[in-house]
């Protein structure tokens, strides 16, 4: 990692979370392509989900690439920031996986279900469970739901919250796990193995985020052109084998 | 009772430099002896004394206790032998976080003496050294002489066969010394305890020792029986003992 701050005219600094699948690989892949365009892409790895937004907001970096739109929106709301989704890049369709059961209908009452604990995906998982009738949530909480918003759990599911990196690894400990797209490969699973999955048109689209004042910047424009090329599309498709999918044509 | 045969002890001072603290010393202490070891500071007296219970493992030579070479004993046997050999250290070596009472109790616990019996023994030992009133105190609140007396009480507690004393009265005033020496003499005679006493106090030698060895620079210079009127002392220190002994007799 390099120290941010020393941004030169033709340098584009993007913060990304190296722990999440998808963006880091893509950014590294396009680095030489941007070079050809005269842009020096610097990747600032930040192993967190708050700091990348802070850095964009306080102008330490030009943009970040790690989050999906709903998270960015709730972040804006909580922190009073005006971050914008500049470039839509990919989707990580998440799903419910199990090592113990083959069919979603086999899940017994009282089953243990693990969901990610980070705020960007915690509500997402709960909402998903609610949509598919496992639980009922308080009216209107939507994606910002927390465990406390569960108003009905007729089947007595036990919901445990884990780090998103843990969810796949703990498949042997739970009956059902909500695993974010990209992490299931850690235990040799793919999207097709999910008992239930988000559809690819879900709102959880991974975006390049930047400040409102910066979104029409020439460098961002060029970045968009490069990212939305067929070449990058092919790269995503072959690298992630359908577990992470490009959302542009 | 105690035989040292050609004991040698070499210390490494630093890389390449060694120091021969004991140079081939042999010694024979018989049962019931009160054997004094005297000599200059740094002569090797403490080191020699410490080889008797193998606190210092000699580099050469043999240590025999009651005829048995204790250097070849198994650990357990050695521990057992050591339980019958008490030692009073030059620097006392009391356990600082135990009270006076518990310090004296400690060797008894090791020897496996049951709790009920211990109390009596401890109180008796503390009364010998006149420290009954300090039983509950910790060593750090004791005067130098009081610490030494605790060390003496501790050594006496187990009723040992052999008592090794490294300057046992060095911190004591004449009267206390006198009473402790009288007690040592008494247990020597009544219980036939063998003692080896390192000391630089000629009075101590004169008053209770029957044999003396004079050490100098790691060797025994001479060895004699105190009652031997014929003996012609070689070293200054031996002359000091024997001459003074005569003087005192003249004055008695």
């Amino acid at each position, binding site marked *: 990692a390099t120290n941010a701050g020393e941004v030169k005219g033709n340098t584009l600094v993007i913060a990304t979370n190296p722990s999440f699948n998808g963006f880091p690989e893509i950014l590294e892949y396009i680095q030489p392509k941007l070079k050809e365009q005269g842009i020096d892409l610097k990747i600032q790895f930040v192993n967190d989900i708050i700091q990348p937004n802070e850095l964009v907001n306080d102008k330490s970096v030009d943009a970040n690439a790690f989050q999906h739109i709903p998270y960015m929106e709730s972040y804006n709301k909580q922190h009073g920031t005006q971050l914008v989704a500049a470039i839509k890049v990919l989707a990580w369709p998440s799903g419910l996986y199990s090592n113990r059961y083959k069919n979603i209908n086999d899940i017994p009452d009282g089953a243990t279900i693990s969901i990610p604990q980070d705020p960007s995906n915690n509500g997402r998982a709960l909402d998903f469970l609610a949509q598919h009738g496992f639980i009922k949530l308080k009216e209107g909480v939507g994606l910002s739901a927390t465990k406390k918003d569960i108003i009905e759990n007729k089947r007595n599911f036990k919901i445990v919250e*884990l780090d998103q990196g843990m969810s796949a690894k703990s498949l042997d400990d739970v009956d059902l796990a909500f695993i974010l797209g990209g992490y299931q490969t850690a235990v040799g699973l793919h999207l097709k193995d999910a008992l239930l999955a988000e559809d690819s048109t879900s709102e959880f689209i991974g975006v390049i985020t930047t400040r409102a004042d910066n979104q029409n910047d020439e460098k961002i424009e060029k970045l968009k052109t490069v990212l939305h090329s067929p070449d990058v599309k092919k790269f995503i498709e072959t690298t992630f084998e359908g577990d992470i999918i490009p959302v542009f044509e | 009772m105690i035989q040292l045969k050609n004991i040698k002890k070499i210390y490494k001072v630093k890389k390449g430099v060694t120091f021969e603290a004991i140079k081939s010393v042999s010694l024979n202490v018989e049962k019931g002896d009160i054997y004094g070891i005297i000599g200059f500071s740094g002569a090797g007296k403490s080191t020699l004394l410490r080889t008797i219970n193998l606190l210092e493992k000699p580099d050469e030579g043999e240590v025999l206790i009651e005829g048995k070479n204790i250097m070849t004993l198994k650990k357990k046997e050695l521990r057992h032998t050591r339980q019958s050999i008490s030692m009073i250290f030059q620097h006392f070596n009391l356990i600082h976080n135990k009270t006076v009472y518990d310090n004296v109790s400690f060797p008894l616990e090791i020897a496996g003496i049951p709790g009920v019996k211990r109390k009596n023994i401890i109180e008796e030992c503390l009364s010998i050294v006149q420290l009954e009133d300090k039983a509950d105190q910790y060593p750090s609140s004791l005067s130098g002489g009081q610490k030494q007396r605790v060390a003496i009480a501790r050594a006496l507690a187990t009723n040992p066969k052999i008592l090794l004393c490294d300057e046992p009265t060095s911190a004591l005033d004449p009267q206390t010394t006198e009473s402790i020496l009288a007690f040592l003499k008494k247990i020597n005679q009544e219980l036939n305890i063998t003692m080896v006493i390192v000391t630089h106090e000629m009075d101590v030698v004169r008053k209770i020792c029957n044999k003396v060895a004079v050490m100098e620079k790691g060797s025994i210079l001479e060895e004699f029986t105190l009652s031997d009127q014929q003996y012609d002392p070689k070293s200054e220190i031996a002359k000091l003992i024997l001459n003074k002994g005569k003087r005192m007799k003249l004055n008695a």
Partner: protein
Amino acid sequence: MLDNIIQQLPDIMEAAKETAIMVGISVASGIIFGIPLGTILFLTRKGQLLEQSYLFNLLNSFVNLVNAFPLLILIVAVIPFTRLLVGTSVGTVPAAVPLSIAIIPYFARLIEQSLVEVNKGVIEASISMGANIFQIVWKVMFVEARSGIVVSLSNIIILLISYSTIAGVVGAGGLGDFAVRNGYYRYQPDIMLATVFVMIVLVCVIQISGSRLARYLDKR
């Protein structure tokens, strides 16, 4: 702001309970395994009573190995073991397994160092009395080193309180995790402050009582 805190108070208390469970179990394992481990490390060192370079090197490497692991990786690495031991790898009690594994070698080092400080003359005196190793360790070394050991104990408890934060990844909960999740990630600075405040109070109580007890036990 105060409303928010009061509303969340039951959760903070729940988190405190989780911390207490994790720290309690780990400290117990630290005492049960760390003290013997540290003692054996000390005894088998070069020049010590049970000098045993093979065993020493083995244990020393083990201690270094565990101390080298970042806690998060340790947690993941011992999952199979945790599962074997408590049936599952998620939750508060399972989290105590990696925490224990992390703290045992660390505590062992502190114990080892405390024992080094014990006056050699006193140990010699007990050898001369024919004490066996167990007696020397139990009745002399631990007695002489006890105040240092108590201070080390309070140090590791404090360390564990903040360590246990990381156990949040396996759903262990606890104060640290609560502060991080609600305070940092969900951006409720008031909750974070309140939770950290509880942690500070805990730490102060432990440090001060540890240091009092140590001073009381030190009769040197």
